[in-house]
């Protein structure tokens, strides 16, 4: 049975019955997900539940064990320019300067001679991004000479210059101090508005997820699927999916009570091993949300 009406045609990203196993360990089980254009999706979940794994599948760095995974209606292949990625580490090439890192995508996608001919043009385009990131004073520096926040800004510029259909981010601000982190959050919201981006953002920080997202997805292995014994090898699913109101780009909203209540709620639904909802009771209230259920799971509806 199927709940929800999302279709591959209307979504930029679409997954159905997506499953990933490592050996005989199930990591992701029956992920159903549709993402519309210009959505800022944040994905939270307990440590080790498979958030990065899901992101690697979307990126094409790894293959799913089974299931459908589509980008703009076409099956996802190996990584290409349609998807941008910002990791917590390793996003920048250590042997290139800031400017070279940002211009790299332009150079790689052009032929050798074209790259030569249009070098000035490419550099200028990179500079405009670096200006926007407030990095124009640091273009000659190497990544190891930058602070954590600057490094992530370069990484974002490096991805943005390719104008990807969807920007994937895996705990990009996880290693930053709280102050820098808030600055970066405000900054990424501004970019998301200005460049009309679609973002898929993994974090383990609930506050960050609820603050940034227009939609928060909770991935968790803590749920009841009606199987008696196989509980310990149960893969994660999306156990909650909330739309979030669009806010002004100010961090003051973090003080509001509603904000705190939602965080508490997500903490219980996704992070409490003792609290197990049945698969049929997940709170999937976002309009794009859908769920496919096996007949066995269907029988749990009483």
């Amino acid at each position, binding site marked *: 049975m199927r709940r929800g009406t999302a279709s591959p045609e209307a979504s930029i990203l679409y997954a159905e019955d997506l499953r990933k196993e490592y050996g005989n360990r199930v990591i992701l089980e029956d992920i159903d997900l549709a993402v519309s254009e210009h959505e800022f999706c944040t994905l939270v979940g307990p440590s080790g539940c498979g958030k990065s794994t899901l992101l690697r599948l979307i*990126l094409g760095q790894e293959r799913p064990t089974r299931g459908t995974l589509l980008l703009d209606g076409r099956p996802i292949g190996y990584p290409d*320019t349609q998807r941008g990625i910002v990791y917590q*580490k390793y996003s920048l*090439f250590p*042997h290139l300067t800031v400017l070279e890192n940002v211009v790299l*995508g332009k150079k790689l996608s052009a032929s050798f001679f074209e790259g030569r001919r249009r070098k000035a043009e490419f550099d200028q385009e990179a500079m405009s991004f670096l200006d926007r990131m407030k990095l124009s004073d640091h273009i000659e520096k190497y*990544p190891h000479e930058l602070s954590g926040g600057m490094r992530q800004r370069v990484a974002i510029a490096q991805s943005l210059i*390719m104008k990807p259909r969807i920007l994937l981010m895996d705990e990009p601000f996880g290693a930053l101090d709280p102050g820098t982190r808030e600055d970066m959050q405000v900054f990424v919201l501004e970019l998301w508005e200005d460049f009309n981006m679609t973002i898929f953002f993994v974090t383990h920080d609930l506050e960050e997820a609820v603050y940034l997202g227009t939609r928060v997805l909770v991935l968790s292995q803590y749920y009841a699927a009606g199987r008696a014994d196989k509980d310990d090898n149960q893969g994660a699913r999306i156990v909650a999916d909330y739309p979030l109101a669009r806010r002004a780009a100010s961090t003051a909203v973090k003080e509001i009570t509603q904000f705190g209540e939602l965080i508490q709620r997500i903490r219980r639904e996704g992070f409490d091993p003792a609290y197990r909802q049945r698969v049929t009771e997940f709170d999937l209230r976002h309009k794009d949300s859908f769920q496919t259920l096996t007949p066995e799971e269907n029988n749990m509806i009483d």
Partner: protein
Amino acid sequence: MVEEPKLLGIHANPPAWLRLVIGLLPFALLVGVYLTVSHIRIENNPADKLTPSVHKMVEAVQQMAFTVDGRTGCRLMLQDTLSSLRRIVIGLGCAAIVGLFLGMNMGVLPGLRGTLLPLVTFLSIIPPLAILPILFIVFGVDELGKVMLIFLGSVFMITRDIHNETEKIPREQVAKALTLGASQFQVIYQVILPQIMPRLLVTVRLCLGAAWLFLIASEAIASTDGLGYRIFLVRRYLAMNVIIPYVLWITLLGFLMDLLLRLVIRWKYHWYSAAE
């Protein structure tokens, strides 16, 4: 305030001048001991050859390095140095190039790795000197045999090291490069290769010691010139006054080559040592 100990204990923090002094001290001692021993022995027996005086050694160097040899028509030490350097540079240079391309491609292409890694591992364990007779039989006792010994003695080590280093590059970097529009070829030659280059220089530095060993061994066995050849030739006449300056000269050459590589790494790849 506790005063820092200058020299003793785990908290010692010797100032720069003291570092220099304690670094030079063992050398001074060594030279001092030699001069004393040499002096005493020559007092007892003026014909002693085992511990020649500095004067004798200077004479020998003058003879070898600055006088044109009547028989060959050239300065012997210069000729020896050039021949030896040519062998070591060609042998090690080819090993570096082959090792770089083999190791790097094995690191990124699982198919190639599966095919070659067991073989390369096997070959790298064969003691190169053990196959020296084979090399002399196959490639002859001339230049090719010696260069091949240096080449085969280092190429598999370099390959394995570069392969390891390539595998250490996070998979994320490859995925990242692909999202920036790189082709597979560009990933290997524009993203991986420049990151591996400094490591290649480090590996070559580490291989230099072994390369000198192979060079001198092969020159000792069959040659008509070269630093190793000369040392083993004059050994027959117990000419320590030639051997000792030659050994010092070889050490200096090794040190300079090492220094050169270190400087190139620091100048051209300063991000490498800084980012470690």
